[in-house]
């Protein structure tokens, strides 16, 4: 047998106040998909960043093809044939898709870039990957999902021997996920070694040749393909058992008060006559494919984007919402899907972010009561099991999933009657996910009303009392949880697409 493609032993890495990795080891063979799992903050991304030259390890050895190597920077990683799809978007928003993918590698003649060839090359790549995005689109104009697809295309364009994917599907809907899996299959056949990080347990079985589990920066163990069993893995990850298969019991909301009523909502870009009602104590799910308009609906409702038409009633009263501050005043909070871009103050710390939507609550006559804000933040850190050395830690230093918990905490503190959560569990580990579901359920049972936008159908089926399905800026269907199934939802979500009305 040939030497393994990649062999890591005794890798350790500390940050101030955090031991991110301690003596971690694993090997990766040619044509193998190795799935790395672990709770938020377990050290998965850190390990991969060491491999791709972004961080330097404190201890340990890295062998590539049996040869010890140093990886001092991203270009060294590229030279070794290692490329990475980052968990957090790392794209240049002002450049086009094609320009992003081939940055620094543009086809040129005498120093002049052949823009046509560049676009053609990118289009071919995107087509071959089944990604339906124009190569000339500015990346900043894409949705998070679109950006994630560009990240994937970019990493694949390097034609690497080792491909690291750090939660590539966290922002994707099932269709894109399917395409990605097909890609992974073909790469495996070509002999590429793949390290795949995910919190989606259902993906493990599909993909994994081997599963490696990390917990608190330590190597816990590994399972081969035939040993893979989700409950076992979860137990290795979190040290206890979790049942995630349950569905909410059917409730009758016909008598409940309508707390939010949206009618005739349209926007210039996409939405056409969107209308729905939300009852007191209800969890309403929004399903749809990438770009269906769920995020845009939420943003239009809270006044983050301008509407061309549409009326909003809260508790039966028409409200005028022209900016998010109006929405919050009317009791509507919105947790955005793009936590890094518009969800967090990255340079500020955990408690400052947690307090951001509730400054009035933490201040008297304009003077802040920081002690109270810290105390509340600490209680949410505990509640949500956010892994952070302290509430004084800048959020940019937290792992992706823990950042998400901070955003969630911000809205939980604000305690609005209506909460719209857009991809609330994006990047959150199974254990914590379950806790968030319970939290949302508890809030609903306390009389709050919640809209959950999610691209994970199991998630919607797990918590939503009712599911609205969108396609191409319209609402195409509505199902109670009882009637809903993944198939029925997909039917609605692709309805208009099949009728060919989607072209805008």
């Amino acid at each position, binding site marked *: 047998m040939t030497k393994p493609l990649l062999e890591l032993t005794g890798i350790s890495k500390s940050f*101030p*106040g955090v031991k991110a990795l301690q003596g971690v080891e694993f090997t990766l063979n040619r044509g193998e998909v190795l799935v790395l799992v672990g709770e938020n903050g377990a050290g998965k991304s850190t390990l991969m960043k060491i491999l791709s030259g972004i961080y330097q390890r404190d201890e340990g050895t890295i062998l590539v093809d049996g040869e010890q190597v140093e990886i001092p920077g991203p270009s060294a990683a590229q030279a070794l044939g290692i490329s990475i799809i980052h968990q957090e978007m790392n794209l240049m928003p002002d450049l086009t898709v094609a320009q992003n993918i081939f940055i620094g590698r543009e086809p040129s003649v005498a120093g002049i870039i052949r823009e046509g060839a560049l676009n053609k090359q990118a289009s071919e790549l995107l087509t071959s990957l089944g990604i339906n995005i124009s190569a000339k689109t500015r990346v900043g104009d894409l949705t998070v999902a679109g950006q994630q697809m560009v990240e994937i295309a970019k990493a694949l364009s390097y034609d690497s021997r080792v491909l690291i994917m750090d939660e590539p599907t966290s922002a994707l809907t099932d269709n894109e996920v399917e395409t990605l899996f097909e890609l992974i299959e073909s790469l495996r056949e070509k002999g590429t070694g793949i390290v795949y990080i995910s919190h989606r347990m259902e993906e493990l079985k599909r993909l994994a040749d081997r599963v490696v589990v990390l917990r608190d920066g330590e190597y816990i163990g590994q399972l081969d393909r035939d040993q893979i069993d989700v409950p076992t893995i979860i137990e290795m990850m979190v040290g206890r058992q979790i049942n995630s298969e349950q569905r909410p019991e059917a409730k009758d909301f016909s008598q409940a008060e309508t707390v939010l009523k949206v009618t005739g909502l349209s926007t210039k870009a996409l939405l056409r006559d969107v209308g729905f009602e939300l009852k007191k104590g209800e969890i309403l799910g929004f399903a749809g494919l990438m770009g269906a308009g769920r995020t845009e609906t939420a943003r239009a409702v*809270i006044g*983050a984007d301008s509407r061309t038409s549409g009326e909003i009633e809260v508790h039966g009263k028409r409200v005028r919402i022209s*900016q*998010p*501050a109006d*929405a*919050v*005043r009317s009791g509507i*909070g*919105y947790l*955005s899907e793009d936590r890094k*871009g*518009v*969800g*967090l*103050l*990255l*340079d*500020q*710390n955990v408690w*400052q972010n947690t*307090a*951001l*939507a509730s*400054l*009035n609550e933490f*201040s008297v006559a*304009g*003077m*802040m009561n*920081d002690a109270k804000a810290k*105390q509340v933040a*600490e*209680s*949410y*850190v*505990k*509640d949500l099991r956010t892994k*952070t*050395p*302290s*509430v*004084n*830690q800048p959020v940019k230093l937290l792992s992706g999933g823990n950042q998400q918990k901070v955003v969630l905490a*911000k809205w939980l503190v*604000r305690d609005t009657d209506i909460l719209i959560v857009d991809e609330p569990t994006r990047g959150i580990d199974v254990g914590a996910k379950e806790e968030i579901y319970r939290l949302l359920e508890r809030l609903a049972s306390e009389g709050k009303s919640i809209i959950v936008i999610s691209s994970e159908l199991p998630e919607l089926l797990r918590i939503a009392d009712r599911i609205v399905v969108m396609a191409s800026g319209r609402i195409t269907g509505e199902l109670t949880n009882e009637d809903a199934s993944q198939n029925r939802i997909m039917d609605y979500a692709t309805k208009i697409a099949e009728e060919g009305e989607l072209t805008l």
Partner: protein
Amino acid sequence: MSEAKTAAPKGSLNWKSWIQQGLAVGTLVLLFIFFSIMNPNFMQWSNISGILLATAGIGIMALGTTFVIATGGIDLSIGTGSTLAAVMTGVFAVNMGLPAWLGVLLGIASGALMGFINGFNVAFLRIPPFIATLAMMMVAQGLGLVLSGVAPIYFTEISWFSGIALGELIPGLPNGVLIMFVLAILAWVVLSRTKFGRIDLAIGSNEEATRLSGISTKRWTVLIYSVAGVFTAIAGIVMASRLSSAQPQMGVGLELQAIAAVIIGGTSLMGGRASIIGTVIGALIMSVLINGLRIMGVQSEWQFVASGVVIAIAVWFDSLRNRGSST
């Protein structure tokens, strides 16, 4: 949910911010030592208080600008704006003969108005801060000349006016310096202890995230620029008080010095990070440097060179501190 505990190295942030100011203070102390050795007269109290007084104008401007820069904006109108505010004070208090205290208040109000217009242009008309305030800089310069009739307005009739900067409520310390320190403390409280300060930094950190958190970022932006305008006007009045007159071309070019003081003090032009103490120290570094070079009798042209080099080195030292944490 109430008594959660975290195994946190508490106060680690404070420690860092102390180091930060420590480094700037270090530069300041080094300059002090160096100049004292070069010329013993440097350490006389009359010279020190002269340095402090020379810092007052730029220092006060810089304090206000710190709030603007904290949002990721910039205010180029502070130099000529301070002049216009002084001229307005003169117009009201001298030319129109209103009571002097009212003239001063109206002068400050005109500064607030300039700031308001800046903020409105930035937040609601979406003119980039650089251009909005550059335009205001030009308008203020022109109006200052027009309203003063291109001639100084003298406050000599108003007996207490020169006392604003030169009187000594605390014996030995000119009031202008006192005003700077009082405003600095006020600004420090506002930045670090109030909702205003919190939102100021939040906007600079991520405006959209702040907006989506239910904060009317536009209105706050207008307010922040208006507050900066008030500081600018006070700076103008303090400088005018030193001269007992509003000189219509006084403030030209001071904006870059004030902004430099802010950045030397560790506030980031990208927004989201600001230090009031740093700003004061930054302003002091600039004045001490210039005064020291003058007292050493360094030729004017070499003063430029030396100042440039020292400022670069000071900020470079400061950036070393950040090495570890970022990447």
